[in-house]
């Protein structure tokens, strides 16, 4: 197992230690996970799969809770901002 994995967040590569959640990779990339219905930037709140504020698209699968998923090598993460654009 690699000790580091590289994922892309909105196309930009982010290197994280293995065992890092996708939500953490997004915060480390300085991105908001989603825009609320009135356009506010939102990041993770509960960190444990309850609040759905960290939902993003993973490898094209939309509406995935990024806090409950660990980073895998080559994973493509798109926050809502990028999906809509």
């Amino acid at each position: 197992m690699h000790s580091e994995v590289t994922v892309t967040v909105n196309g930009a590569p982010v290197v994280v230690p293995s065992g890092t959640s996708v939500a953490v990779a997004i915060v480390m990339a300085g991105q908001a996970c989603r825009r609320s219905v009135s356009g506010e930037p939102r990041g993770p709140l509960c960190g444990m799969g309850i609040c759905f504020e960290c939902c993003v698209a993973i490898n094209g699968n939309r509406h995935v809770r990024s806090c409950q998923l660990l980073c895998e090598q080559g994973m493509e993460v798109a926050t809502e901002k990028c999906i809509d654009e």
Partner: protein
Amino acid sequence: MAAAACAAECGVRVGMVDDNPSLGGQIWRGESDGQHHPDASKWVRRVRRSGAAVLCGWRVVHQPEEGVLLAENLSGFCELKYGKLVLAPGARERFLPFPGWTLPNVMGAGGLQAMVKCGLPIRGKRVIVAGTGPLLLAVADYLRKHGAEIPLICEQACWRSLAKFGLALVRWPAKIVQGLRLKFDLAGVPLAANSWPLAAHGETTVERVTVSRAGRVEDIPCDYLACGFHLVPNIELPLLLGCAVGNGCVQVNEFQETTSSSVFCAGEPTSIGGVELALIEGQIAGLAAAGRTREARAWFEKRKKARGFAQLLDRTFRLRTELKSLSRSETVVCRCEDVSYSRLRQHTCWRSAKLHTRCGMGSCQGRVCGPMTQFLFKWKPDSVRPPVFPARVESLAALARQLEGQPTAK
């Protein structure tokens, strides 16, 4: 984990389904190496040795018929058949709305801890910890050990009830040791009682927090605000399975069996009592589900004592009424649908608010704003409907096929 291990050790066939990416729930998240909690690695090893089949990263979304659960993960869905079922869905944090609480980097106290456990670098960051409950101290200690600077811990309870709490701990010597160790480890970190956040400020993320510190208003700069107001049981899945609930907790008999036949429940959903009580209840439920009622009975005395601690928590960390007036008119209460406090105030019940404003009808299905409106407006939640979590279209299509009597794809 305790239920699965105990039942499997009795020789019955056990499958364990966990929504989390690895074993250990929230308290022991990322602790299978036992670095901070030796008990965690002990239980992980015991589960592995017991022969229980473990499915991590799967969440149960529905029970299409009695004895069958539908679960899904990122790549698909599956049906799980059971003879006996032990539910242990744990608890979540209670959040309260105040201006700025929706800013990125304002998280739950346990929420931020979970993020750090999942790799968030916290070294050198300033974290204000606020809310209520023993979790605040544990979180502050954990973050500090990982290099965070804690300018202040705000506890809404008053010194008097905290002092009473400390004195009552005499019945649980192990908790006193834990408490003293925390106090020692947190030396130099200011802990303020009668204190709570008034507002969080910042452009794109939180930059400073205004707090009411024992009656004085203060502005404190920070990188994160970790804010949780004790815990709320996760009762959605038990409700879906028809288990009776009273006072927000799943009702169980002495063997942890719910009012729904063959369904047991253990841990925080039956009462917020912490990891010790959860482990005892899990062992009772696992043994009872495997038919070993005599062995289960051996845990009753310990459970009684641990339940007393749950009642003490409940008394000590009751929310003060001042917290009801933190919201301004425009403060968002329902984060999924951006419903403001002023729009909700026009309604008299949860259902009316849902129908007119979509409050509680977003992705979290009211898991965040439900307990808030219960505190703010005394609204009672409605019944739970399937799917209990947002589900993939593929899973729903499989359900529909089943209803029509056609074979499912998987």
